[in-house]
């Protein structure tokens, strides 16, 4: 897959093309979205690093309240979803439609597991009173308060992006129901894959800065 679109290469968009090799312009088509991901992720990590250097102790105590096992589980779930997403794209290109359908459903299921797990983590923290503005948080240091504020903002943005990617996967799955390996359909599946990979990368950096780089 190269970043030159089929149309740009002089090939018209046709339906029912045999062995279509999509040279899709993933970056060009999703450039604003991908650029937003880079900026949001980069800025979040920089803000986290700056505040961590100011309130090192508070961040250390705050991070100890979080479960690293949950992070590992979530990361493996997203890696597996990324794998099934890519495999579904490959099988779609190879016209293995039953396999595509199966992998597509598995991807959605894994993303739902990730989202449910994120909500469970939030619920646990909120029940415990670890939410900005709560009575418990008012007794804690400024560093801890800022850590949890940034935790909710960064992971929340990532979660919203993952939910958007999941809806995109579902919608594309519904649109592509005629089981045709057309250039348009392949591009749709590829874009979905690209959007999901962006959410995965966002999670990798956010989780590294929240759970590991402390």
């Amino acid at each position, binding site marked *: 897959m190269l970043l030159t679109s089929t149309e740009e290469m002089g090939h018209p968009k046709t339906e029912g093309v045999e062995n279509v090799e999509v040279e899709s312009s993933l970056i060009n088509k999703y450039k604003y979205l991908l650029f937003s991901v880079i900026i949001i992720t980069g800025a979040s990590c920089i803000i986290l690093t700056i505040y961590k250097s100011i309130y090192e102790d508070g961040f250390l105590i705050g991070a100890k309240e979080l479960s690293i096992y949950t992070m590992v589980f979530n990361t493996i779930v997203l890696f597996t979803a990324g794998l099934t997403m890519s495999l579904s794209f490959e099988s779609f290109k190879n016209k293995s439609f039953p396999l595509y359908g199966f992998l597509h459903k598995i991807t959605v299921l894994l993303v739902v597991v990730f989202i449910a797990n994120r909500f469970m983590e939030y619920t646990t923290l909120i029940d415990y009173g670890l939410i900005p503005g709560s009575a418990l948080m008012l007794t804690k240091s400024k560093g801890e308060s800022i850590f949890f504020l940034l935790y909710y903002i960064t992971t929340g943005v990532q979660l919203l992006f993952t939910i958007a990617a999941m809806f995109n996967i579902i919608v594309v799955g519904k649109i592509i129901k005629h089981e045709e390996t057309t250039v348009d359909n392949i591009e749709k599946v590829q874009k979905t894959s690209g959007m999901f*990979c962006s959410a995965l990368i966002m999670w990798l950096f956010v989780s590294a800065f929240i759970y590991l780089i402390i």
Partner: protein
Amino acid sequence: MENENGKNYGRFILLWLSLVVTMCISVAVSSMNLGSIKNTVVLTITAIQSCLIIIVFAGVRINNTTGKVFTTVSVVFLFVLFILIK
């Protein structure tokens, strides 16, 4: 054709395995008392994982202007982060 497909699928499974292994290394390193090197190693592993995801899972090849701009911006962010975490 079947072998070719198998090879393609195998590439993704291999990447998934390497991502899981590198994540385990990341977690192990982060729990060690290595000072500032710890953060550099974790960030380096995360950057490598991201590159692999972009290249293999998303199937992106950076060979146009937009791609180059994105790569440059990402590298600048990474560079800033590497300086800040030290």
